[in-house]
Every structure is written in structure tokens, then in C-alpha cells.
């Protein structure tokens, strides 16, 4: 089954959903979703997006079900159980949404997400997702290359790293009222990683607007890295000269590194990373599958790390 079977192309083209509308306003479905939002609820039926499929950047593995992807989430801003985000993220207001860009770049300031989306055509890519907890999924994301976005800000030669920040709003994000992690969540990439064509800014899932529990309205997906690098609900992008203090690596540097490249040869100190359990494989008797270096994206990304000791820079 491919995602296009679920949302046939002719259907969503006929809706002529504008991007802004697709994100919760104006378009056909959004009458319903707007009313829902006024009541503080996420539309039960998220609006369809307009996009092209990018087969060259898609894996052949069968994608996980929408149900699995949208109910099995690590998103500590809404609680530490896998089911917490889908139960508690429904009230998050994702429109309007502003992304603040700063640091070592010529173009900085606050940008409306609707404007960003107008300038960045969407595409669908089916990526593997490997969690640091040794489970994995295959996800049909809809988004645009991060490089397209970053280039518009004209980063200077001092921009060696990019730092991302999640919304800090304890009223809307109950997990932020606990001390489980340092808030707001911060992630980062080296500038060459950020500019890599595989690195994706995601706004949709299965051809529809991204569910809140998966990081709406804007999240990062870096398919060759462990899932925690994929920061959600991004409100800040900053170009910096030094390695940013990222949340997991900062809170427990012996267990989580800045790079966090998927690597079966480097175990987490408390569990093995040599293999993984594919979510939704149907049977409790399904076998583990071997984990691939760079999550199977080695051909595209291994050259970024030539000369780097990946055992030490995990």
C-alpha cells in the first residue's frame, strides 16, 4: 500500500486546498476544522495537502499505518508515555505560527509559517525512522528540504551550526510543567547536515496536515539520525558558531551524543543498538531486524563524517 492509495492524487487536487488553508484555515475542510479549533480541538479529519511524490528519496519498505504513526509517539512536552501525545496534544494551537530566525545570517526576524509554506513547494518522502530506544517505523512525510528554507536567510561564514527550539508554553504543553527534561527542547545540526538534501522540514503525514502529536505545525526529520534529533513544534531557528547545547546530549552526555547518527556498532550504554523492532509488524512473533549504519542512508551521508571517529562522536 502506498500513501497515494489512501489519499488519491485526483481527490486532493480537486480540493484545490491552498497551503495556508490546508494548515487549518480557509480551504474546504477547514470550515469543520476551524470550528473544531475554536473549541480547542484538532480537526478529526486533517486537511489534505498538495504535494509531489519524491520517489528518488523514498524507501521501498511498506509504511506503517497512520494509526501506529499517530498514536505511538515520543513527545515529552505532552508526557512520557507513548500514548500521551495523541491524548494530550489535541489542544495545541498550531495556527497562526511564527518562526523566529536569528544568529549568524543576513536575513533574520519573525516569519509567519503560512508565508514560509507559500515559498516552499511540498513533496512526499517515505523515510525510515529509527528511535534511540531500538524500535523503528517507516513514515510517509510531507515537507520540504530544510536547505531550501535556510538558503533564504543567507547564513554567513560564521554559521557552523543550526539550532532549533520547540515552543515553550507549559499551559498548552503539560509535560513542560514537569522537570523530566530541560525546556524548551533544543536540537541542532552541523550546517552541512542541515543543508543535506535528505534533511526535511515536515508539515504533513500521509498526505494530510501533520497531527499535533507528530510535531505540528513544523518539525524536523533527519532520517539517518536517531528520532530525538527530529525536533517538533519548531518556533526558533538560530545560526550559531559553536555546537549548540542540545536537550538529550546536554542532559545525559554519556548516553546521547550531539551527532546521534544511527550506528549499530555503538551501543547505548544501557541497551544494544545492533538490531531494532519494526513497529506494527503485525505479530508478536515477528523477528527483530538488523540496524543499518546511518539507518540505511550511508551512501548519501557517510561522506559527511569522513575522518570523524564515530565511536567517540556518537
Amino acid at each position, binding site marked *: 500500500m502506498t500513501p497515494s492509495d489512501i489519499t488519491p492524487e485526483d481527490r486532493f487536487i480537486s480540493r484545490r486546498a491552498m497551503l495556508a488553508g490546508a494548515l487549518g484555515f480557509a480551504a474546504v475542510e477547514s470550515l469543520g476544522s476551524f470550528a473544531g479549533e475554536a473549541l480547542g480541538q484538532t480537526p478529526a479529519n486533517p486537511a489534505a495537502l498538495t504535494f509531489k511524490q519524491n520517489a528518488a528519496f523514498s524507501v521501498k519498505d511498506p509504511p506503517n499505518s497512520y*494509526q501506529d504513526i499517530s498514536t505511538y509517539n515520543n513527545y515529552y512536552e505532552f508526557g512520557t508515555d*507513548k500514548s500521551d501525545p495523541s491524548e494530550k496534544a489535541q489542544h495545541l494551537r498550531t495556527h497562526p505560527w511564527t518562526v523566529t530566525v536569528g544568529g549568524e545570517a543576513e536575513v533574520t526576524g519573525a516569519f509567519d509559517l503560512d508565508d514560509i509554506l507559500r515559498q516552499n513547494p511540498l513533496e512526499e518522502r517515505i523515510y525510515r525512522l529509527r528511535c534511540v*530506544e531500538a524500535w523503528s517505523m517507516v513514515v510517509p512525510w510531507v515537507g520540504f528540504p530544510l536547505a531550501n528554507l535556510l538558503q533564504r536567510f543567507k547564513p554567513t561564514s560564521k554559521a557552523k551550526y543550526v539550532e532549533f527550539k520547540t515552543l515553550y508554553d507549559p499551559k498548552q504543553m503539560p509535560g513542560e510543567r514537569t522537570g523530566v527534561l530541560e525546556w524548551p527542547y533544543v536540537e541542532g545540526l552541523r550546517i552541512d547536515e542541515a543543508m543535506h538534501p535528505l534533511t526535511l522540514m515536515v508539515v504533513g503525514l500521509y498526505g494530510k496536515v501533520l497531527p499535533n502529536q507528530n510535531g505540528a505545525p513544523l518539525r524536523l526529520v533527519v532520517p539517518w539520525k536517531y528520532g530525538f534529533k527530529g525536533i517538533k513544534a519548531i518556533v526558533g531557528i538560530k545560526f550559531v558558531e559553536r555546537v549548540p547545547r542540545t536537550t538529550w546530549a546536554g542532559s545525559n552526555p554519556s548516553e546521547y551524543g550531539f551527532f546521534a547518527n544511527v550506528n549499530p556498532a555503538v*551501543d547505548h*550504554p*544501557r541497551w544494544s543498538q*545492533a538490531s531494532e*523492532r519494526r*513497529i506494527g509488524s503485525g505479530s508478536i512473533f515477528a523477528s*527483530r531486524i538488523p540496524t543499518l549504519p546511518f539507518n540505511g542512508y550511508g551512501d548519501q551521508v557517510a561522506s559527511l563524517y569522513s575522518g570523524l571517529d564515530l565511536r567517540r562522536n556518537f
Partner: protein
Amino acid sequence: MSWRIRWVAKPVVFFACLVPALRLAAGAFGVAGVSLGADPVKLILHTTGTWVLRFLAATLLMTPLRDLTGSLTWLRFRRMLGLYVFFYAVLHFSTYVFLDQDGKLLAIGKDIAKHPYVLIGFLGFLMLISLAVTSTAKAQRRLGRRWTRLHQLIYIVAGLGVWHYWWLVKKDIRPPLAYAAVFAVLIGYRWGHRRLRLNRTNRGSAPNGLQQPVELAQQRLGVVPANARVGDRYTELERG
């Protein structure tokens, strides 16, 4: 009274204790619309592990309940609850071996050697085996006082269980902390109770009035070997 415990209360408790396992079995085989979610193996591991700790707490709760209520009935459920600790530990261990690690002994050996939390859990499981095989009245008689010493391992198992849980959580240590607190209270209670009694004896008060009827009753219940003399050190057993 006694027949009601034997034929009504005990069977009810027995089947109630089976419910979590039956729910998992229903989910695993898709019976009655029960679902185990996106990652069923992890859910089975987590659920059975959690029930090991819960039954451990329930087992350790029987003695304080006896003291608080003055009723010996509680002790009649202790062995069954203790065996349920073992039952859920067997499910937990076999889920890990056969479903999570696909029965690959080499991978399991590596996992145990390299990852301490697996080793801690495994140690606790070995101790539980020794307790389960000596849980019969016959073993109790044969081992005599050594049985009491042996079954004090349950306190160590509780510690290992919490440690095992603590070490495997990624960040949110509140749940293992909650179990640690419960066990601390249950074990701390025994320690305080013992000191209190020792103090009484040291002050030369009358021979412990509470202890003798308890031991006599335990003999009648078969909890203590029938040939034990009153005043024998079976206090460990009743507190166990």
C-alpha cells in the same frame, strides 16, 4: 470461616490475579478486540514487569495488614501472591528471551554481559526461582530455619526489581521511584516493628504477648512446621 477462605476468597483472588495475563494473551492473539498497540512486545514486557513489582508489594503487604487488623487471614494469601510474583516474572523473562530477542542465545548472552539492567533483572529472576521451588510446605519443613533465611531474599528481589526498572527508563524516573518508595515503606515497617519488639523484650516486659498466639496460629495454618516449639525464632517467617 475457614472454608469460605479456602473455597471462595482464595479462588476469587486466584482468578483476579490472572486477569492481567489473560488480557495480554487476548491482545497477543487478537481475541475479543483487545489490542496491544503499536509495539506489542514492549507492552507485554512492560506490563508483566510492572505486575511483578505490584505482586511483590502485595505479598509484602500481608504482614503489615495482619498487624494492623489483628487478623491472620492475610497470611493465607501470601504464598499465592508470592507465586504470582514468580508467574509474572516467568512471563516477563520468557517474553524477553523468545519474543524480544527471538530466542537467540548469543544475542542474549551479549545483552546480559554488556547491559547491566538485564543482568540485574536476571539475578532477581534466579532468586525468585529459588523461592518458588521452596514454597511448598514440605520444603518449608525440610529447610526449617534455613527456609526463613532463604525467603528473606524477597527483600533483595524487591531492590533488584526497582533497580532493574530504574536503569532501563530513558529519563522519567518517577514510576520506578514510586515503587522504590512503596518497598521502602513495606520493608522499613518490618525494621521498625522488629526494633520495637526487641526494645520491649530488652526492657524485661512480659514475654511478647503478641508473638505466641501468632506462632500457634501459624502452626495450625501450616505456615510454620508443626514440630516447631513456641518461642522458636519464627518471627522472621511471620514478618517475611
